[in-house]
């Protein structure tokens, strides 16, 4: 198929950006979206133009590196699918596709389609863990965990940290990302001792970088791993409770 691409090009964080239009003449429907961009880059290199920079790595939807706004949708049109798993059979001959980086004040653009998502690491560093030094654990079966709880904790833990939730949110809020980790750890028996401090510290750090949640729900719609809004509710509840608990 033939495609027209409008791709955001930006030299550096401080420089202005612009859309460039490129034509591709021979795209196969079995290609992944990123393989289509590989073809574009190959063509650019042949024409002595600098290739488009974009983050990507595993190309199987799990590392969370890739993330593009495709025709205004985070990760494109297919539900529950990261950009790297999107395939060109979703498009038709003659389509025009607009490709942009994540747009959010918490994710400054670095170059072309690459953004800085380090704020996510700051949130995890603030408390997204259970403090258990290596070697101090007791036997794994000593603490049974209800299957339903383990399953729900897994659903939250499936987050890949891609940032689509923030990019899709009109407020640029990171509640879905933060709550997925808060919820996973707060739900498990192992996570109880640090529950209040974790919730408070992670939420406070989140608010230093990102916008506020107004319960729109675009985040969960864009999420490639179907993280549920329920986790945000749980985080809010735990945050409120934490206000009444002593600082530990």
């Amino acid at each position, binding site marked *: 198929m033939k495609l027209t691409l409008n791709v955001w090009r930006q*030299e550096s964080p401080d420089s202005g950006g612009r859309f460039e239009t490129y034509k591709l003449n021979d795209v*196969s429907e079995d*290609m992944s979206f*990123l*393989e289509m961009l590989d*073809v574009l*880059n*190959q063509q650019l*290199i*042949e024409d002595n133009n*600098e290739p488009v*920079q974009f983050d*990507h*790595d*595993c*190309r*199987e*939807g*799990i*590392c*969370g*590196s890739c993330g593009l706004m495709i025709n205004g949708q985070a990760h494109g049109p*297919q539900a*529950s699918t990261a950009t790297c*798993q999107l395939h060109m059979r979703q498009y038709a001959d003659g389509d025009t596709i607009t490709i942009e980086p994540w747009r959010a004040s918490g994710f400054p653009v*670095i*170059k072309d389609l690459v953004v*800085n*998502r*380090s704020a*996510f*690491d700051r949130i*995890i*560093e*603030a408390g*997204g*863990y*259970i*403090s*258990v*030094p*290596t*070697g*101090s*654990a*007791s*036997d*794994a*079966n000593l603490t*049974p965990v*209800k*299957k339903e709880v*383990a399953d729900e*904790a*897994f659903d939250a*833990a499936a987050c890949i940290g891609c940032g689509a939730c923030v990019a899709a949110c009109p407020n640029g809020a990171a509640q879905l990302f933060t709550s997925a980790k808060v919820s*996973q*750890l707060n739900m*498990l028996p*192992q996570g109880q001792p640090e529950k209040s401090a974790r919730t408070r510290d992670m939420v406070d750090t989140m608010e230093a970088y990102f916008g506020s949640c107004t319960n729109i729900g675009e985040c969960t719609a864009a999420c490639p791993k179907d993280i549920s809004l329920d986790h945000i509710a749980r985080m809010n509840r735990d945050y409120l409770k934490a206000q009444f608990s002593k600082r530990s």
Partner: protein
Amino acid sequence: MSILDSRSPEGALAQKWTEHKFDMKLVNPANKRKYEIIVVGTGLAGASAAATFGELGYNVKCFTFHDSPRRAHSIAAQGGINAAKNYHGDGDSVYRLFYDTIKGGDYRGRESNTYRLAEVSNNIIDQAVAQGVPFAREYGGLLDNRSFGGAQVSRTFYARGQTGQQLLLGAYQALARQIHDNTVEMHIRTEMLDLVVKDGVAAGIVTRDLLTGEIRSHSAHAVVLATGGYSNAYYLSTNAMACNATAVWRAHRKGAFFANPCYTQIHPTAIPSSDEFQSKLTLMSESLRNDGRIWVPKNADDTGKVAAEIPESDRDYYLERKYPSFGNLVPRDVASRNAKTVVDQGLGVGPLNNGVYLDFADAIERLGQDKIAERYGNLFDMYERITGENPYQQPMRIFPAPHYTMGGLWVDYELQTTIPGLFAIGEANFSDHGANRLGASALMQGLSDGYFVLPYTIGNYLAPKLGDQPVPVDDPSFVDTEIAAKENINRYLAVKGTRSVDWFHRELGKIMWDYCGMERNRTGLEKALSEIPALRAEFESDVRVLGSAHTLNQSVEKVNRVADFFELGQLMCQDALMREESCGGHFREEHQTAEGEALRDDENFAFVGAWEYTGDPAAAKLNKEDLEFDDVELTTRSYK
């Protein structure tokens, strides 16, 4: 040629590690902060090691080329992690896990390391559960297990099809806690370009900031490489796009021996490639072989038919037929080679006739679609997204793909390379899997090395150095290495040739796959050894790298990595040519039984081949570590 000493402790196999832990020197808690340790890589091995060093009180500098430590490729491991918990009372034990692993590796692994791996496997599960890793559980709330290839007990712990993700996030979170506590200084988007060695001892590394292009030196008392494997030498593999061998290869050029480079694992269950633009191959977890049945049509005429239209009598469930006791759960090397055999016979299925069926119809009938969805739902969804076919309704198509490399930097029992002060852990070393790795053992080894082995052994190296300062970064050893790294990049930018880096990588990959892939022979390997240097020469004079080295430039990143793959590819072929036997993932056509199974030569090849860099990639020098088996008897592996 010299003979290498593994420095495995004396004594009974089951006591070696316990006694050695007592014999090793300790660094007292107050003195640990006087030491600097560099950890390169943040996968399971690197993140777990860096976090543990930080907890112990060492000063750690940790490096990743990703934008976050959480993106390392361990995250993509699907199936599970082995441990000898025997929670199901089906006869498992540390010894059985050790035995299965050494046998699965076709008796080309080191007994003492492999035993230690099995021994600490249980600690890993305890640690991960305490971190909040959401492993699958039964209704009673206890941990669930599944079985995996090469074992007859159920010992694999799993978190749906995302076990690697959950274990890596556990290690990443432990690392994040240390970053927050300032014991670990994290350097993201920073790639190691070279190792610095002074007076024969590892002194630090030279890195490139991938955003600014800045070349910088970092010194330390010890350097740990946890940089993964080299399957991307084949270009198409299940590895992530950026996985590369530069760190280990540069260390090799500086004196670290490279062991068993020809031991590569071709995983039996990846999605076959669909066209020439294919950039990587996607794995479908081996755990699928628990419930899926592998078959091809008996007649080549049926390969174009819809699977459902081929009656049972016209299907060949070739693994069940040839290996009745292990069936579809034979080890990876056996499953892969058999798939290649039937495809080569013209029985391959799919539009390009390049796959075999992995069929869940029986399992769905037996257990119901819901149960299958619960076990493998995310894998089935992934398959459908990639191929456009629904595996609940028609069988998956699969074909082997390069996946894991058992070879790597040679290390002794303490995981130290031949350069004092340089350690290699996880897939980057060679030590635990012999010539073939069993499923669910890579996660086990990465975390074993990082959490439970190196934190002990590194103390033994560091203790006598109390009071020594790291080599200053303005020392000529650092300055010269920085200059060489810059010149290397500038040289490639100046070529201004006609072909992209990717084009050369793809061409190299074809040579490697054709001649050093699932089956190897002398003629092919010799051909590869003449074609690789020719392609390399073309690369040096015709590669096109556009843009500047002082900004984010992915072509600059790639050109360094591909240059190193050329040399490593050459060594892989040399090693494969030297090893005149078939073992595990290394199958030489000249050495097979009448039934087409691998034929080992224990008399002449029960050794680790550890190569030494001489300055000329074509003239690497072979050193040997003799493999001694005190506890197991070398038998021909049989899975029949």
